[in-house]
């Protein structure tokens, strides 16, 4: 079973967590065009490679956190807090 590293509780089994999808998405200005708003709501990078995403330790401490995870190997490459930027070397890495 996949294990994820909760920053507060350490490694725990996958079923304790809920994935919140792609992270670092910021809401555009309310005056944004329909196209910009549609992009914000629906369009995603969906990489085959490193994905920056948010998870919640729902059935544990309840904490939200960010990880960088490879979508083919499921390897977790970095764990960082909700308000923090991703590690620089992972920002644009794709495979």
């Amino acid at each position, binding site marked *: 079973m996949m294990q994820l590293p909760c920053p507060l509780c350490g490694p725990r089994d996958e*079923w304790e967590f809920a994935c919140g*999808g*792609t992270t670092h998405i910021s809401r555009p200005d309310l005056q944004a065009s*329909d196209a910009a708003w549609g992009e914000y*709501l629906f369009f995603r*990078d969906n990489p085959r490679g490193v994905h920056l*995403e948010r*998870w919640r330790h729902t059935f544990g401490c309840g904490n939200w956190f960010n990880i960088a*995870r490879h*979508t083919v190997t499921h390897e977790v490459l970095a764990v960082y807090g909700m308000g923090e930027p991703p590690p620089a070397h992972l920002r644009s890495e794709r495979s």
Partner: protein
Amino acid sequence: MRYSALALVRGALAAHRNWTPAWRSPEPKRAYDIVIVGAGGHGLAAAYYLARNHGIRNVAVLERGWLGGGNTGRNTTVVRSNYLYPESARLYDFALKLYEGLSRELNFNIMLSQRGHIMLAHSRHDLESIARWANAMHMNGIQAELLNREQVGELIPALDMSPQARYPVLGGFMQRRGGTARHDAVAWGYARAADALGVDIIQNCEVTGFAKAASGAVTGIETSLGRIQATRVGIAVAGHSSVLARLAGFQLPVTSYALQAMVTEPVKPALDKVVISPGTGAYVSQSDKGEMVIGGGLDLFPSYAQRGSFAVLQSVVAATLAIFPSFSRLRLMRQWAGIVDVVHDSSPILGPTPVPGLYINCGWGTGGFKAIPAGGWLLAHVLATGRNHELAEPFQLERFVSGRLIDEAAASGIAH
């Protein structure tokens, strides 16, 4: 070679040395009128209908792996058209109608078995939901029958209908025309029929990029076997749609997830309906070989891994055994996953992309197999004519800007 009972007899008399390969394995030509990326059901069907409906035979289908090796070979083989909205009902029932004539049309037995597709209700709320669902189907001109508890028990004797049942069954509804079809045969049948009409199916050929003119229009495809010129290109690659879109320079409203399925060891006939229990998260039918084919919900995190998470496997097996306790002695033989292309409204994207000349068929999410004939027909139509077929009109990429979504999440059965 035409397949028939007579051909079998002739084959028997010739010690079965007379059979020829069902399709060629040609070298790619330098240019085609139309190239389709992805030799799964949708791509092969599109190639077949390009040749059959539109007379365009200078067509290639490129496949990175082997023909039918993606989601076409990884689904639970279920066909149905029990959707909620008129746009979807028209689309999926068109697919089911084509399936109904497909074995004859392709001269290839796709083993369509319209055994009935039954949705279970486990609560008062479920009963109300299925009544609304069946009524929506009637409004769309598609047959559906509400079933009471006794009727469900008679149709599915293996269900736990005891007073102690963990998840009591209160009723259900059935689409009699729903059922199963042999998934590989659908790919093989379309491949053979398309090949016979002159389509080149090129396996082990990975697309690595798109060539474009100064106007931005597509002029060719870079592949692991060299450049192939084509000014009209169709993409039908399901869970890998975003990867191809990135190569072509645009984004899609798609997230890729692993959807897993599994089969038990084969046993004698015990279940002659397709049974789905949205409340518990189990989706079960018995294959002609006797295996119980079991599906469930998505692994709910983005993945391109083509293998299922053990956490979800556990919950799907637990759900299945809760409603079919007698299956607890069966051993699982195999478990696998396909990468599905989920969009926000659980409806497909069928039509042009931001790149002129490049068309896409994606977004079927967890339910692409049942739609193969329609998806192929509509992709062929837009590739051949440059215009959307009226059935495809509501399913454009543009709806994610206009907001005119067709939200069929509730009709995918198991909440994803």
